[in-house]
């Protein structure tokens, strides 16, 4: 481990006072075995997940580089968002103390937003102003098709105009009324003020100007910054990336994802870094990372691979504490509502509810996930702790109950054949019949390809096949490469060739990263871009719309979707089983949207 002491007695004194305060106030740490005296300086090494290495520094990134790793674990260290998601309790809510702006004020029937910036400074000493916010907006408007998080109809399409009142206040006029929570969380939190005084130029040798104020100029600036961001060999030296408002400045970057950050001495935020350096270390494989963990302390913040979860406790002897990291997302697998054969079946809510009743989530958590996960029965996750999920969804309207599943099928005209294939013997649209489109003699048999290479998913699917057979629902499992699975995952109509898949499990779900207010508009609204299962329900659309364009809370929406089962909910695995050195403190809580805040971390002697 490479550590160095910060220079200057006064700095040490200030840091020591801050550390003492931090240690007393939060009590957050890697483990209970930690003790010792806080020390200033040092280098903390964080192990990157295999295949998740940062490779793009410009915050307005294109789809090819859009990832949690690039945004939350790389760019955010240097470039802070207007509103920071993740509070000191680890909840996925805005933390005003970490945000660049005060809580926005909504007026005119929630169609006008007034944003007031705090007293933040760039590392070059210039204040963060509303011009920097406008710089982002102008760039986004001119280049929205290239911004990965852009969704047609949403920001900046829903922005009618903006007005800079002064250096600290900017007023946005929207094209209608929006739910303030949704707009703040899912729209404004994406705004990352950019250093206009350093970046508003069209070439390396060009002068700084106001090029962003015309579409052509904004395109030229975007192209220049994008080109610079593709020159990764210069990440550590390019002056562009040295003007930061976050607590860290990138000083060394190596192809493959190695990144070394130095504490920004001029950071104006609430928590000054105590460490001198923060290093992100790439690993080829879970095995390589685990070997390093087992052999000593060259990693301060690592992880135990999901499939090796049983080793978590054994690393205590190497001085590590196990800290499960719960991500803000929901896991599920999909049914194709437009499949010509099985679509009519899964369009019957009672069949979906029967299938959900056959998924033994608790045993999945205890078994394949070895306790590192949580049950999940709807679109709003129950964990990590949050103000949105309610008891109805948390306990689940369709908990594991084979008798309920059998009862649901029998009461809708099916002859249930446990360990065989159930058959529709009473077709029709009556309340006790099989339902619209279900033909007489139709069988509950589905092809279910799932992504290979994940032991947990494989175990879950085998168990699910067995559980489903209790009600005569046959699933024909096949293990396919991940890329094969996701290549099928596109919205389709029944007549299209690509609509022949019946069910799919790629082993994931949806992470509420850029849309931390979990309204599900991108997932379950009819025709939305990521609604790959072709789910369409007017009532769901109405409830979703009320959470986005009205002022409704999430309750009605989440309870309805939990009951309707538009996808088959699966247990939510922890994002990571973190292994944190007992000498490294201040790491808890781990961010629900998987961002890193090493400015809170410090070593103890």
């Amino acid at each position, binding site marked *: 481990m490479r550590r160095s002491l910060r220079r200057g007695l006064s700095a040490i004194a200030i840091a020591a006072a801050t550390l003492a305060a931090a240690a007393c106030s939060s009590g957050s740490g890697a483990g209970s075995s930690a003790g010792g005296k806080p020390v200033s300086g040092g280098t903390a090494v964080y192990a990157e997940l295999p295949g998740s290495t940062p490779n793009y520094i410009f915050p307005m990134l294109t789809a090819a580089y859009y990832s949690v790793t690039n945004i939350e674990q790389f760019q955010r260290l240097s470039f802070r968002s207007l509103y920071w998601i993740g509070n000191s309790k680890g909840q996925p809510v805005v933390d005003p103390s970490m945000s660049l702006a005060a809580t926005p004020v909504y007026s005119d029937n929630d169609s006008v937003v007034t944003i007031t910036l705090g007293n933040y400074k760039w590392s070059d000493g210039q204040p963060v102003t509303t011009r920097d916010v406008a710089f982002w907006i102008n760039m986004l408007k001119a280049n929205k098709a290239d911004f990965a998080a852009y969704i047609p109809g949403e920001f900046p399409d829903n922005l009618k105009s903006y007005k800079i009142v002064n250096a600290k206040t900017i007023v946005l006029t929207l094209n209608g009324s929006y739910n303030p929570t949704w707009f703040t969380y899912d729209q404004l939190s994406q705004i990352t003020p950019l250093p206009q005084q350093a970046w508003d130029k069209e070439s390396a040798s060009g002068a700084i100007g106001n090029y962003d104020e015309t579409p052509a100029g904004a395109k030229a600036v975007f192209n220049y910054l994008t080109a610079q961001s593709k020159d990764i060999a210069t990440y550590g030296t390019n002056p562009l990336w040295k003007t930061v408002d976050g607590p860290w400045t990138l000083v060394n970057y190596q192809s493959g994802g190695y990144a070394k950050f130095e504490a920004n001495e001029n950071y104006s935020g609430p928590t000054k870094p105590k460490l001198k350096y923060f290093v992100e270390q790439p690993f080829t494989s879970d095995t390589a990372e685990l070997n390093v963990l087992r052999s000593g302390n060259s990693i301060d913040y690592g992880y135990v691979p999901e499939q090796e979860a049983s080793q978590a406790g054994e690393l205590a002897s190497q001085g590590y504490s196990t800290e499960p990291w719960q991500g803000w997302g929901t896991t599920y697998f999909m049914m194709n509502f437009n499949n010509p054969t099985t679509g009519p079946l899964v369009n019957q809510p009672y069949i979906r509810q029967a299938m959900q009743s056959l998924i033994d989530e608790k045993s999945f958590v205890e078994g394949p996930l070895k306790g590192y996960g949580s049950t999940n029965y709807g679109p709003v996750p129950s964990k990590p702790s949050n103000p949105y999920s309610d008891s109805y969804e948390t306990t689940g309207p369709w908990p594991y109950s084979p008798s309920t599943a059998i009862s649901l099928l029998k009461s809708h005209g099916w002859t249930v054949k446990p360990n065989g294939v159930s058959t529709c013997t009473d077709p029709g649209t009556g309340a006790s019949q099989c339902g619209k489109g279900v033909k007489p003699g139709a069988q509950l048999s589905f092809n279910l390809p799932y992504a290979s290479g994940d032991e947990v998913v494989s175990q879950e699917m085998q168990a699910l096949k067995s559980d489903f057979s209790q009600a005569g629902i046959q699933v024909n499992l096949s293990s396919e490469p991940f*890329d094969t699975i996701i290549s099928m995952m596109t919205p389709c109509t029944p007549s299209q060739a690509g609509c022949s898949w019946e069910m799919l499990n790629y082993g994931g779900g949806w992470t509420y990263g850029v849309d931390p207010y979990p309204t599900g508009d991108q997932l379950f609204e009819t025709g939305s871009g990521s609604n790959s299962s072709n789910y369409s329900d007017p009532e769901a659309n109405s409830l979703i719309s009320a959470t986005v364009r009205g002022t409704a809370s999430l309750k009605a929406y989440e309870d309805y979707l939990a009951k309707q089962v538009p996808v088959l909910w699966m247990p939510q695995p922890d994002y990571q089983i973190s292994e944190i050195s007992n000498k490294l403190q201040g790491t808890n809580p781990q961010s629900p949207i998987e961002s890193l805040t090493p400015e809170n971390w410090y070593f103890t002697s």
Partner: protein
Amino acid sequence: MTRFLLRRCAQAIVVLILVSVIVFCLLHMLPGGPARAILGVHATPTNVAAFNKANGLDGSLPAQYWHWLTGVLSGNLGFSYVQNESVSALLGQRLPKTAFLAGISVVLAVLIAVPIGFFQAVRRQRVGDYVLTTITLVLYSTPAFWVAIILIDVLAVRLHVVPAEAPQGSFSALLSDPQALVLPVLTITLVTVAAFSRYIRSSVLDELAQDYVRMARSKGAGSRVILFGHVLRNSAGPVVTLLGLSLPFIVSGTLITEYVFNYPGVGLLAFNAATSQDYPVMLGVVIVVAAATVIGSLLADVTHAVLDPRVRSAAGIR
């Protein structure tokens, strides 16, 4: 000699073109395509179509191949979206590291394997030969990843003698942390020694049975003169050929070793490219390895011909 070289170069070019066509076609037969792999599971069809168009992936397969080939001929191996870097730059950074790892390991392996092979051949069917045969056979039949895991467990985890992870960062960082190189070098060396020593033993035994050895003995030449003056040079020819032809084996060995020890070389680059459908990098690595193999084979043939007049004569080289 010139004619021989030209003929072999022409063969090498044909081989390289065939390799590139086969690999290009195989890669494009994989499901999903690169757009999905790069843009992620929630990419919309519009996103995918835009990506394909922007990257020339919406054309026919021959058109895409021609586009790639003309780029290669002008020195452009393509751009990796996964790594956000040109393939040439990536290979430029990683190749020296792999060459360094493989080079040190092979040199060490040769330095160890040649004496072992000679010793076994001279002392054949005696205790020393049996012991070394057993050891080398065990190593030869043990997969590289298994050797690596055992070394990590014993030397890094239990004894804490050396780190379990290779040095990270730039090429100079490799040199600044030699302790961290011990395990990766040792893994490749052990596996390679086993293969080489078996081959050298057989080669020396073949030479010892040759008429010229009996002739030398009958003329009163001592064992030392026979072994080092005649047998060594003649048995070196097949060994040189072996070195040239074992390049793919060594590269595949480094891939596994780099994977286990987190060594940032070409093997690791290839592995990551394969798992993330990074087509340009995969093609670049395959072409470079194929070129190295063909060149290695060519150099081995030429060196063999220089060392052994019988080969020159058989190949019609003057």
